[in-house]
């Protein structure tokens, strides 16, 4: 059974600055759900409220009908895992020990054989098993991120939340990670909530897309419903064209707009020192 997350009239604020308010959402169906939106729209804040890291400014979040604020961190951790944004913060612990942190909500002081096997298995899923005995601070940013995702998987949650899991990954691993997350969601019947900035990656793998805009949720539905040229213009202020590739929307950006603005203001469009042809050519 999947965990049911309900946001009732939820509002977020940092001090007197309101991020968004009056959000009503129901997350209950297994699958990969992408959260999209511009910087500062409160996507991470929304995740923080689901697992009690931040207190709602108004309204409430319910996990299976119970108010989050009445649950302990440990209760929540058994249901919900969270993979933070890549921060570049490292420590001299082995990769295996790092992934084993994810077993904390399920294990006692001593780790069992099962814990080790689950952790190693999750590492293997992220193609990091070879690095199990390396120190976490000896890895690259992309490898860090894969370890962090493995740590989230090791928690075996019913809702897995990932804050920009693909930000440092190469294209191969971006696609692989998103496919893996979708497959896990479908096979285990869990919910995977992903914050993402690549609209095409999100469109390709998501079962549901939620578009945040400053102040509220702009759109919520399937990728084809949400990702339209109008939505992208309204939310990101970017001209785009949406075509269909293999049944999924595919966004092509047209960003000539900012060049026009500069010529309207009478500013030179290119530095006089640049070659006339416009592009640097190898001699």
């Amino acid at each position, binding site marked *: 059974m999947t965990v049911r997350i309900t946001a009732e009239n939820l509002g977020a604020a940092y001090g007197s600055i309101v991020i968004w308010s009056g959000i009503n959402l129901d997350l209950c169906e297994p699958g990969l759900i992408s959260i999209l939106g511009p910087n500062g729209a409160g996507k991470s804040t929304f995740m923080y409220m689901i*697992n009690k890291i931040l207190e709602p400014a108004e309204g409430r979040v319910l996990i299976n009908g119970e108010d989050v604020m009445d649950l302990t*961190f*440990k209760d929540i*951790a058994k249901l919900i895992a969270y993979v*933070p944004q890549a921060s570049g913060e490292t420590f001299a*612990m082995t990769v295996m020990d790092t992934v084993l942190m994810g077993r904390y909500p399920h294990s006692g002081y001593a780790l069992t054989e099962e814990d*080790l096997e689950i952790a190693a298995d999750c*590492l*293997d899923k992220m193609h990091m098993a070879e690095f199990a005995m390396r*120190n976490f601070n000896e890895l690259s940013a992309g490898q860090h991120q894969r370890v962090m995702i493995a740590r989230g998987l090791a928690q075996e949650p019913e809702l897995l939340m990932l804050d920009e899991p693909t930000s440092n990954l190469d294209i191969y691993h971006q696609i692989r990670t998103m496919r893996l997350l979708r497959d896990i969601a479908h096979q285990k019947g869990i919910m995977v909530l992903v914050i993402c900035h690549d609209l095409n990656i999100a469109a390709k793998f998501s079962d549901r897309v939620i578009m945040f805009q400053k102040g509220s949720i702009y759109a919520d539905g399937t990728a084809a419903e949400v990702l339209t040229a109008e939505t992208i213009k309204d939310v990101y202020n970017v001209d785009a064209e949406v075509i269909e590739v293999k049944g999924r929307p595919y966004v092509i950006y047209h960003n000539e707009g900012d060049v026009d603005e500069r010529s309207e203001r009478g500013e030179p469009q290119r530095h006089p020192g640049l070659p006339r042809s416009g592009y640097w050519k190898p001699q």
Partner: protein
Amino acid sequence: MTKLKIRTKITELGRGVRLSNVASHKYKDSDTATASQRAVADYKAYRYAKTLMLIVVALLCLVALGVDIGLGPYHIDFLDVYKAIFDRLGDWGGVMTTDEKVVWDLRMPRVLTALFAGMGLAMAGAAMQSMMKNPLADPYTTGISSGAALGATLAMTMGIFLIPGAFGTVVNAFVFALIPAGFIIAMSIYRKPSPAMIILSGISLMYIFNAIQSYLMLVADPNAASSVYAWTIGSLNQASWSNLPFIFCVALLGGIALMYMARVLNTMNSGDAYSKSIGINVNRARIIVLVTISVVAAGIVSFTGIIGFIGLVGPHIARMFVGSDNKILIPAAGLMGAGLMLLADCVVQTVAETMPIGIITSLIGGPVFMLLILKQKREIW
């Protein structure tokens, strides 16, 4: 040797010892083993090697203990020390030989105090560094040493005792050393106790304590001021069988408590948000660790005076050998601290018996530490 080579060596060492464990070998040596099976086998071998390392260091500490007890004006041979210890244990009520008297009555209290003080301070220091994510932190970071010094100064110069009697100074130092922790707990009601808040409030308290203490020493009688000064250097001269149980309990129970919190300390590396998401009440955990560290450090400091350096350097040296995993680091730091104190006491006993050990720990420890920093290649922070 590169860090990778060291890591491989350690893993190999562990695997070699685990010959009896067929499981770990079957995976490593067969071609059919999956990557995750190899990872599990390697991890087990690695953990085993670390445990083995702890046992070796513990044995070295036992050797240092014997050497240290033997040193002094009345020299006792290394093996005779252990003989005296076991003979006495076997025949508790009997008449004591000279060796037994010297070992048990004169030297054991001092050496055991050194052992437990070093152990407690280094464990507390390791936990403090991990919690604050700061290599400069030591058990005194929150102002414990200044608090203790002020408490002792009040007793020695003004005759102000919280409780009268033989333990007046000790109790004063202990209670005043706990003031910073109490202050931080009170502040945590209004603000979440972040590492920066804890360090900064500790520093502000330190300045306040120092100001009062400096004034008291200025107006005090020079003899009293001089004894205060001697107290702040830290020495083992006050060690006795009657003081030992307290230091023993504080170091051991505190150490066990910190080892129990090791997994929580590990996750704090990944930030507060992540720690909360796996079910740790970070703010409460930080207060619990802080209080434990404070009680350990205050308990030791109030008997020995401010022995510096061990709490800062013991954990760093341990970190160089075992890495930053607190489950191994905290006991390793404890053993390293104990070992360093015993070595320092050996030097004291050979060079000048009345020299406060606080001077030696810093004088010898400083250069050794600097050498280790220069030599080490592994990123420990």
